């Protein structure tokens, strides 16, 4: 299925290659580079490229391209998902999925790739199982290893692979039994010039961290399950039970995993927690413009909005910006023309604003379009859709687990047009 994998960095060096069937020459990547050149911007390389003998399916993650070589017809989503899984695994193992991290751990990378695919077919991809086969590097372990000479490869086979429930290993034991759930919601929205919502939607996930002994059978219920109109589930969830009772009933995998992801679409009202007042203008035939934006809270349910960052891609003719923020700090990169304003949190008494002058290239025509503002923020202890966990019950085991639920709302692709 997947013949070979090439890892390519932003400057076009192939710094790692792995072949599962016959060796495919590096020159196949030339087609990729060609497409990259044509696309002008690195990010615009199309994910599927055909060459006379192969197809190249690539993903772009953290400034790296994962280019897979395919020789037969495959479902494209399958390959794309798998490549993302590879990148996720690297991230999981090395803390970041960067060229430096991969080069430093090249041996582990090869071991992982060897276990994840055989003859081009995905084998072990669950992080739980992989970690039993190949232990992730830690500073402590590498010190210990260098003293004792022991390795970071498990000497025994993963036990979980033979249990009746494929996602959970048998004989788990903890001294503290804990079950934590994180409800994370991201707001994707486009706000138009006048502040009206063009499009808004909430993408939510519930991530779980379960450390429970034995074979616990959990059921999680919500105060308002009707909110979830479009949900996808971890394989452990009993679908029939959800359909009939709207209760999540499952035997959890051990450790961290994503329980469900859901979407609350624009049909239900999506609250927009911030507003932006802006006036950006460029004068005709002059080399200056004005820039003035203010951010304020709106529909924030009484919670503090924090971690606000505003990013603006200014037009090409902008040379420099002289701005004064009332709060936080700003940077403008004259090469990429990106303005970043790190605001921090909003205090309603004094709204943060950023105003000043824009220097334009003299003689150039004034930009036709005002730039869009990209906004990041975070609200703790609030799920903006109003989703609330009602209770968690455990069956099948005798002990009393410690339970906890945390809510957080973040901005996803949150864009304000000006």
């Amino acid at each position, binding site marked *: 299925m997947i013949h070979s994998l090439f890892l390519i960095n932003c400057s076009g060096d192939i710094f790692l290659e792995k072949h599962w069937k016959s060796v495919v020459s590096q020159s196949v990547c030339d087609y990729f580079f060609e497409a990259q050149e044509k696309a002008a911007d690195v990010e615009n390389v199309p994910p599927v490229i055909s060459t*006379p003998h192969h197809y190249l399916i690539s993903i772009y993650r953290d400034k790296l391209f994962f280019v897979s070589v395919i020789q037969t017809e495959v479902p494209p989503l399958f390959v794309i998902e798998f490549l993302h899984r590879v990148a996720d695994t690297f991230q999981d193992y090395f803390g970041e999925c960067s060229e430096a991290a991969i080069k430093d751990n090249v041996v582990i990378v090869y071991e992982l790739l060897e276990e994840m695919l055989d003859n081009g077919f995905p084998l072990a991809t669950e992080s739980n199982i992989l970690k039993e086969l190949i232990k992730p590097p830690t500073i402590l372990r590498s010190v210990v290893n260098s003293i004792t000479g022991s390795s970071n490869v498990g000497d025994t086979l993963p036990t979980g692979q033979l249990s009746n429930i494929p996602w959970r290993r048998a004989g788990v034991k903890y001294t503290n039994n804990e079950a934590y759930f994180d409800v994370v919601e991201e707001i994707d929205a486009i706000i138009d010039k006048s502040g009206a919502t063009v499009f808004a939607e909430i993408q939510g996930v519930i991530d779980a961290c379960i450390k429970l002994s034995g074979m616990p059978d959990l059921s999680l219920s919500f105060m308002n399950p009707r909110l979830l109109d479009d949900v996808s589930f971890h394989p452990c969830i009993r679908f029939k039970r959800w359909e009939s009772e709207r209760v999540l009933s499952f035997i959890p995998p051990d450790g961290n995993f994503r329980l469900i992801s859901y979407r609350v679409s624009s049909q239900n009202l999506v609250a927009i927690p911030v507003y932006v007042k802006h006036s950006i203008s460029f004068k005709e035939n002059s080399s200056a413009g004005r820039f003035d934006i203010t951010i304020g809270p709106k529909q924030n349910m009484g919670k503090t909005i924090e971690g606000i960052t505003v990013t603006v891609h200014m037009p090409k003719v902008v040379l420099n910006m002289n701005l004064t923020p009332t709060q936080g700090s700003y940077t403008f990169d004259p090469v990429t023309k990106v303005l970043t304003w790190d605001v921090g949190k909003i205090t309603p008494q004094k709204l943060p604003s950023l105003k000043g002058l824009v220097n334009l290239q003299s003689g150039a025509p004034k930009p036709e379009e005002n730039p869009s503002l990209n906004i990041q923020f975070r609200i703790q202890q609030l799920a903006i859709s109003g989703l609330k966990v009602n209770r968690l019950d455990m069956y099948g085991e005798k002990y009393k687990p410690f339970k906890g639920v945390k809510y957080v709302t973040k901005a996803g692709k949150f864009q304000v047009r000006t």
Partner: protein
Amino acid sequence: MPYLGSEDVVKELKKALCNPHIQADRLRYRNIIQRVIRHMTQGLDMSGVFMEMVKASATVDIVQKKLVYLYMCTYAPLKPDLALLAINTLCKDCSDPNPMVRGLALRSMCSLRMPGVQEYIQQPILNGLRDKASYVRRVAVLGCAKMHNLHGDSEVDGALVNELYSLLRDQDPIVVVNCLRSLEEILKQEGGVVINKPIAHHLLNRMSKLDQWGQAEVLTFLLRYQPHSEEELFDILNLLDSLLKSSSPGVVMGATKLFLILAKKFPHVQTDVLMRIKGTLLAACSSESRELCFAALCHVRQILHSLPGHFSSHYKKFFCSYSEPHYIKLQKVEVLCELVNDENVQQVLDELRGYCTDVSADFAQAAVFAIGGIARTYTDQCVQILTELLGLRQEHITTVVVQTFRDLIWLCPQCTEAVCQALPGCEENIQDSEGKQALIWLLGVHGERIPNAPYVLEDFVENVKSETFPAVKMELLTALLRLFLSRPAECQDMLGRLLYYCIEEEKDMGVRDRGLFYYRLLLVGIDQVKRILCSPKSDPSLGLLEDQAERPVNSWASDFNTLMPVYGKARWAAISKCQGAERRGPELPNTASFTTSGPLIPEENKETAQELSDSGALMLVPNCQVTAEYFEKTWLSLEVAHQQVLPWQGAVHPDTLQMALQVVNIQTIAMSRAGTQPWKAYLSAQDDTGCLFLTELLLEPENAEMQISVKQNEARTETLNSFISVLEAVIGTIGDIKS
């Protein structure tokens, strides 16, 4: 560290590997081996230390073993004689008490990829198939496929295949999936693994135990299975139901495809499934992974071909945010184009209008073409926007707007007036060949309505010497000659100059020949010129057929979740041909660009138009003259040969219907006015053998169906059936135009 060439590195490492002191120190030994591997992965030729590495494989350290095996697999094809030495160690490891070591050794041995290794690996593989550790069985099962590949095209080992088929019952789910993968490769010549009823049901029952990759692959294998009864079919669909809600989009798409294929005789089930995965698709469309998003968008477009209104209420999902990569934006714009309906047209157009001023010229142009596409249905609004865009006086925008106008005026003659008013002045902002051609064509064909047309063309004639594109000169010749026919006084002089230039001075043969041709044509006389040049100025029926070519789900179900939707059908055919027939074939140009330049008629639709006009063996004669009286007489004297009911939504547009029927040579004898209830129409057609078809259409709005009764003057079922299919196609096409 000083730079060392690969030879020096090899020498140094070789020395280190041979050093007994280092060999005694496990840690240092392993570090040296890691260095070898690191160099290998960077592309340095490390085959020089093969001998030493083989020695290093005899160790208890499992990491070291892994590294050495990795090394061997890379260089074995280069050093086959030395690699044979390693086989012995590998064979020994295959019976190690630790299952990890056994699996590792077996996997490495199967991946050696050198000739002659088969005889050594056969026995270990057979042992591996019966190993008690599932880890080893997984490796062994795939090893069978690798072994088969090493043999080349030799015969299939029947015993091995049987063994693999029996392992499909293995308790480990990955072994089961690997068996399928392996069998598929071994039996490639014979059409792959056979899925019969017991296997299919076994796999369906194990489905929930598989991981997402396994599920996705088993779903593709199950496509081969044909259920024997309807009951079985619905049982299977029930079993698969939960997969439609899987968290992996790949599995959801795989399951959807299986549903679509299995339920090919149940259109309502298909529609229902597409309804249910709407959410998943939409979620994938806004997923964090841009590649996933792209693939999902391609599939959305595919679904829209059959269910045009499917995503209409979610049109805002397809608004572009400016940070998205190009290929996604282009797809989104195309999707938006197809989602337009009466309620959202204003919002969509406002949004597209915004994209037209995007910094990226390509994207801006795509947005303009998209507005042009929508203009076929919502002409006035779009023409107004396009006219405003001309006011921006931007070169890249003006040229595409003019091209859009050219295409639009051909399909929608009603906008001629508006376009002609918008055109003056835009010649200053057009520099490229395509744009100039479009402008010149418009000036030539509709010149009589544009007061300053001759003067604009005159500018082009003045500058013809510095014109670089021959195509522009050709277009100019034709346009000027056409304009000459309608406004001779203003054009005669410059036409003479242009012809003189083309014949005497022009270097390009094509242009010169065209000039000579027109010159001689003019000599023959003005009537001849008119006969040849005054072709129709528009052809609305073309747009009608193109826009509404709604395809049944079954026509693309088998392409769903393959690479085909990502490429588009025409391009896919070209690539497969290039890949299949001629491996060294020339590379396709532009395989990677997804830009759509909005051609007048896309290839595939041309085919549809063709099919419509000559389906089957039936040849309807154009201009069959049947008077109303004759029709009435014949109608009353004949029996109804065929009666059928087709679904029909909303009111009828008699003109549209009449035009469409005209295209396939069916004449309208009489028709009720729009809005009458019940609505009736009488049609007649004649084929080349003289057989007459008389048809009555009866629409009763409360039933939302159109009743068709056909009478035939000679009873011949074949031709009757083909006639009905033609009629059905036309009515089906028109039927869903949303009023």
